[in-house]
């Protein structure tokens, strides 16, 4: 049977992708950001997964206002990096895992999660920047990926609790997949940031670190945090953090091992947060 061995959490800032693509990672501004992922790149080689279940949000790229799915799972064979307005990022295409994805879709829909199944979409920085941070600049990503997109653009977004419970349903689905796959689940987005209006540039270091602590130690309580707290305390785009609860919900009930923890301010407008948790 397949199983989830670890979860990875990371911000997915577009400027980080640009810094990588333009060869600026050695600049003094960027050095401390990328240093936080040195461990992670090695860890990815050491603990190479068979499949990554990658939770992210689309930033008005694949989904316009014509159609806004709350939860969308990709069951396609492959996905192209999107042109977000400055041309597609020069990164490998994403290879899907249609069979595992379809299995998970079937299982969680029967568990009362009302997914949208997607067979054609481009993927934006929400997915490709975490891949670059964790894998560097390879010719191909190290394994197939199941994309899972969450609406955090138009309010109301799904609650933290809903995300956490969905994670549990995903775990159950993966654990009933026949092939013995080693699956990593990633939650991306966040941490505190606000990209709009006179309050743009908001960072809440204390809140972010409390979030990381609670994500590790008491995710069940964390999952009950209302939306409004995220927006007020972590900025209008800090709401992306609800996605981390999907990955955390998919971990086993035993306390995980914290393989890596990193926090840095700033990257562009955003606080960078990053965690690697291993299942016990």
């Amino acid at each position, binding site marked *: 049977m397949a199983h989830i061995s670890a979860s990875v959490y990371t911000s997915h800032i*577009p400027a980080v992708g640009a810094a990588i693509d333009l060869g600026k990672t050695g600049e003094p501004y960027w050095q401390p950001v990328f240093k936080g992922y040195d461990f992670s790149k090695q860890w990815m080689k050491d603990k190479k997964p068979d499949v990554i279940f990658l939770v992210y949000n689309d930033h008005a790229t694949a989904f316009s206002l014509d159609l806004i799915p709350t939860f969308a799972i990709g069951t396609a064979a492959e996905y192209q990096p999107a042109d*977000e*307005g400055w041309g597609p990022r020069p990164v490998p295409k994403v290879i899907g895992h249609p069979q595992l994805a379809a299995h998970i879709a079937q299982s969680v829909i029967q568990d009362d999660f009302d997914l949208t199944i997607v067979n054609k979409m481009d993927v934006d920085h929400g997915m490709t920047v975490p891949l670059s941070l964790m894998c560097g600049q390879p010719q191909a990503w190290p394994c197939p990926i199941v994309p899972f997109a969450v609406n955090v653009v138009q*309010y109301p977004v799904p609650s933290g609790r809903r995300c956490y419970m969905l994670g549990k349903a995903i775990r159950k689905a993966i654990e009933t997949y026949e092939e013995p796959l080693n699956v990593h689940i990633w939650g991306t987005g966040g941490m505190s940031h606000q990209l*709009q209006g*006179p309050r743009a540039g*908001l*960072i809440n270091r204390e809140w972010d670190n409390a979030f990381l602590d609670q994500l590790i130690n008491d995710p069940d309580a964390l999952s009950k945090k209302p939306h409004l707290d995220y927006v007020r305390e972590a900025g*209008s785009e800090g709401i992306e953090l609800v996605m981390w609860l999907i990955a955390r919900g998919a971990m086993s009930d035993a306390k995980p091992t914290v393989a890596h923890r990193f926090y840095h301010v700033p990257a*562009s407008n955003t606080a960078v947060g990053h965690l690697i948790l291993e299942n016990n």
Partner: protein
Amino acid sequence: MSLDKPYKDIPGTTIFDADMSRQGYHLNQFCMSLMKAENRTRFKANERAYLDEWPMSEEQKQAVLDRDLNRCIALGGNIYFLAKIGATDGKSFQQMAGSMTGMTEEQYREMMVKGGRSIEGNRYTGEKK
């Protein structure tokens, strides 16, 4: 409107809810169109003419021409959509975000390097700073 909006008391922040989405529909869909290289070229060649192809309000068109992102947001624009205008202009997300704060680009960058805007005094409208 009968939607409950508990988020109205957060200063300098517009939540993109269904009402804003309805108001900004064509403005945001215009932004989406800039994801195609040929549309970016046509827009840059004649912004006004390109905007006139969309059933946007005159106010929305003017706000785009002025690159007044706060105004765009007040008229239903969403930052993830508006970012396509910035990308077309070759602006970074930091330049775009900074432009909404009344700070210069340098001041905003400086604030971020120093740890960003503090949450203190920025939780509730009318709160003492």
